[in-house]
C-alpha cells in the first residue's frame, strides 16, 4: 500500500459504517482539516445518510430501526408539557402564565394513545419502506438504461456532439465528489481520483473552462500530484498522448497553482481548463476567518466598520475561494451539499439523480441539459 493510499483510508468510511475512523498518528494532516470547533465529521441529511454506505444500511437494519422506534418514548422531547384543562378557570391569565395553549393542548400525552399512534406510524413506515424499495429499484434500472444509452462516452467528439445540441452551457461548473468505502465499486483514493479525472475530461470536451471539485475532507487537495498524473493519463486516453490539452490545478486554500507536467506550448496562455480544488475548509470557516481578519483590521483603524458591505465580502471571498459556479453536480443518491462554500451557491443550479451513486457521464450530460433549459431571473 502506498503512502497516499494510507492517507486516504484514515479519512474514509470503513466498511461502509457511518462512523468515520480518524487515526491520531496522522494528526499533521488532520490539523489542516479540523475546524476550530473540533468537529471533523459531516452528518449528511437523513435521506442521504440512509442511502450511502453498505453494511450499516441493510433492509434488516431498517426493519430493526422502525420496530425499535415504537419503543422510543420521546414525549418529553417533542410534546409540550401536559396541562390539564380547567373548564372553570380558562381565562387569559391562566393561559399566559402557562405559556401553552390549553385549547389546543397536546393530545399525545396519554400513554396508550401515544403508543397506538406510534404503532400506526411504524406500520406506515413499513409500507413506505416497501414503496421506497420499489422506487429505488425503479430508479436504479432507469439509471442503468440511461448509462447504456449514453455509452461509450470516452470520445471527445461524441461529448461535443451531445453538447452542441444545447442552447447554452455553464461557464463555471462545480461537482461534489466523495470518497466511497474501499469495498465498493470506485471506492478508495483510486476511485475518487478516477472520478475526478473523468470529470475533468468530460468538462474539457464539453467546452467548459472552469471546474471546481469539492470533497469534504480535502482528499484531492492532499493528493494533488496523484491527481495531476491521473488527469494527464485520462486526457491522453481521450486525446492521444501526443496532444494532451494543458490544464491548471488551483488550490485556493493554499494559494497554489499546478500545471500539467509535460508542457505543450506556452502553458499560461493556453490552458484548456482550470480545475480548482475545494474542501470543507473553504466554507463556513473561511467566512469566520475573514470575519476575524476584518475585526482586527477594524480595531487597527485600517478599515471602517461601515465599509463592510456585501460587495467587499464578495470580492474577498472570490479571492479566497473562487467564483460562484453556475451548475453544481452532485453524484450521490439525494441532494447533500456537504458544506459547499455557502457564499458561492447563491444562484447555482443543482443537479443530482435520485438514487444514483456513481460518477457517470449520463448524470453529467443530463445536468448540462437541465442547465440549458433553466431560466434565471434575479428578483424579477
Amino acid at each position, binding site marked *: 500500500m502506498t503512502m497516499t493510499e494510507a492517507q486516504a483510508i484514515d479519512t474514509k468510511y470503513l466498511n461502509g459504517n457511518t462512523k468515520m475512523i480518524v487515526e491520531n498518528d496522522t494528526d499533521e494532516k488532520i490539523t489542516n482539516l479540523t475546524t*476550530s470547533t473540533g468537529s471533523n465529521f459531516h*452528518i449528511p441529511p437523513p*435521506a442521504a445518510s440512509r442511502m450511502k454506505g453498505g453494511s450499516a444500511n441493510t433492509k434488516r437494519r431498517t426493519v430493526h430501526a*422502525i420496530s425499535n*422506534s415504537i419503543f422510543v418514548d420521546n414525549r418529553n422531547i417533542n410534546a409540550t408539557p401536559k396541562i390539564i384543562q380547567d373548564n372553570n378557570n380558562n381565562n387569559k391569565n391562566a393561559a399566559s402564565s402557562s405559556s401553552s*395553549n390549553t385549547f389546543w393542548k397536546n393530545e*399525545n400525552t396519554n400513554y396508550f394513545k401515544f403508543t397506538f399512534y406510534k404503532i400506526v406510524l411504524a406500520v406506515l413506515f413499513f409500507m413506505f419502506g416497501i414503496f421506497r424499495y420499489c422506487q429505488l429499484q425503479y430508479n436504479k434500472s432507469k439509471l442503468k438504461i440511461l448509462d447504456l444509452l449514453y455509452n461509450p462516452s470516452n470520445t471527445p467528439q*461524441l461529448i461535443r456532439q451531445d453538447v452542441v445540441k444545447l442552447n447554452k452551457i455553464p461557464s463555471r461548473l462545480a461537482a461534489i465528489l466523495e470518497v466511497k468505502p474501499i469495498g465498493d465499486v470506485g471506492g478508495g483514493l483510486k476511485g475518487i481520483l478516477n472520478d475526478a479525472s473523468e470529470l475533468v475530461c468530460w468538462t474539457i470536451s464539453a467546452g467548459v473552462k472552469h471546474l471546481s471539485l469539492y470533497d469534504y475532507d480535502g482528499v484531492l487537495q492532499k493528493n494533488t500530484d496523484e491527481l495531476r498524473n491521473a488527469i494527464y493519463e485520462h486526457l491522453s486516453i481521450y486525446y492521444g498522448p501526443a496532444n494532451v490539452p494543458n490544464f491548471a490545478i488551483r488550490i485556493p486554500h493554499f494559494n497554489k497553482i499546478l500545471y500539467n507536467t509535460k508542457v505543450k506550448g506556452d502553458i499560461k496562455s493556453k490552458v484548456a481548463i482550470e480545475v480548482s480544488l475545494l474542501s470543507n475548509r473553504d466554507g463556513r470557516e473561511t467566512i469566520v476567518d475573514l470575519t476575524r481578519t476584518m475585526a482586527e483590521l477594524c480595531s487597527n483603524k485600517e478599515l471602517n466598520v461601515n465599509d463592510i458591505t456585501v460587495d467587499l465580502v464578495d470580492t474577498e471571498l472570490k479571492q479566497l475561494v473562487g467564483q460562484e459556479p453556475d451548475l453544481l453536480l452532485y453524484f450521490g443518491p439525494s441532494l447533500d*451539499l456537504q458544506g459547499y462554500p455557502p457564499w458561492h451557491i447563491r444562484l447555482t443550479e443543482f443537479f443530482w439523480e435520485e438514487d444514483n451513486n456513481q460518477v457517470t457521464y449520463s448524470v453529467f450530460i443530463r445536468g448540462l441539459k437541465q442547465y440549458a433549459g433553466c431560466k434565471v431571473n434575479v428578483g424579477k
Partner: protein
Amino acid sequence: MIPSAKRLIRGPLIRSANYTVESSITLFLYVFNQLHIVFMRIVPQSVRVWWQKFLQDIFIAILKVGPIPEHVSFIMDGNRRYAKSNNLPLKKGHEAGGFTLLTLVYICKKMGVKCVSAYAFSIENFNRSEEEVQTLMALFNAKLEEFANRAQDYKDPLYGSKLRIVGDKRLLTPETRAKLKEVERLTKDGKDFTFYVCFPYTSRNDIQHAIYRNSKDYIENRIKLDDINLEKFSEKMYLDEFSQKCDILIRTSGHRRLSDYMLWQSHQSSTIEFVPTLWPDFTFTQMCLIFFRWSFFTTIQMYNEHEGSQQYIWKNFLPSIPFMNKTHYEPLESLADPPVAVSVLG
C-alpha cells in the same frame, strides 16, 4: 469510421431518452389524488369538510409521535405563474400564496415544529415594477396584522407564536418599519413557536450583516477575538438560535436553486426539497408527505447513531452476555502465568 457508426446507434436512442419518465412517487400521488377527487365528488359538502378535517387531524397526530423537524423553511415561488395560468390578476396570485403560507404555518405549529421561516421578499425583488412592489407591501402588511391578531387570540390555533420580521430593514420606508416593530412587539411573548418572515432578505446580506455585527462588537470590546468562531458567529445572524441549521427547506415551482436564501443554514446536512407545484397549489398533503419522508429517514438515522444508548428502553431488560460487550480491559501482565515452555530440541 467508428465515431460515425456510434452516431448511428446513439442518435435515435438518445432522442427517446429525452422523455422525462414520470417518477414513481408522482404517479402514486396522482392515482391517489384522482381516487380521492372522485370520492369527494360523490359525497355531500358537509361530509367532505368533516372528512378532510378528520384526515388532517389523524395524520398530524400520527406524524407528531415520530421525530419532528425543528426548523422548516419555505421559498414561496410561483405565485405569479399561478395567477397567469388561472387568468387572475397578479394580486390574486400573491393573496392565494399568503393564504397557503398561513395554513401551512398553522399545520407546522400544530405538529410541533419549533420554527418556520419564509422568504417573503428578496432584496432583489425591489427590481420589480413599482406597482407590484406596492401591492406586495400592502398585502404583506395586511397578512402580518392578521397573523399578529390571531397570535393574540386565545382561541386561535396560532396562539402563543412569536412573529419576527428579519432582513435588511434599512431598505424600507420609516412608516413600514414602525409598523413592523409594532407587530413584533405584540407577539414578543410567544414561546411555543417562532415564525420568521424574511423581508427584505438575502442570505448574502445575512452573512455580511453577521460579519459586520461581529466586527462591531469586537471593536467595541464586547467580545474577544476567540469569540468569533463557528458556533458563535451564527448567533449574530438574523434567525438567532435557528441560524445554525434548517432541517427542511422546501422550494416550490420546480427550480433547483436556492436563489440567495438560507445559504448558511442549508448548505450542511439539511434536507432540501424541490417541489414542482406552484406555491398556491402546494397543499397539506404534499407538505406532510415531505415531513413523513424526512421522519422515516430520520428514524433510521437516529437508530444508527444512538444504537445501544439509553434511549432504547428494551435494551435495558436484555441479559448482559459475558465477553460480548467489552467494557473493561485486562492488562497482559495480570493474566495467569502460562505453563512452562519446553522446546522439542531439548
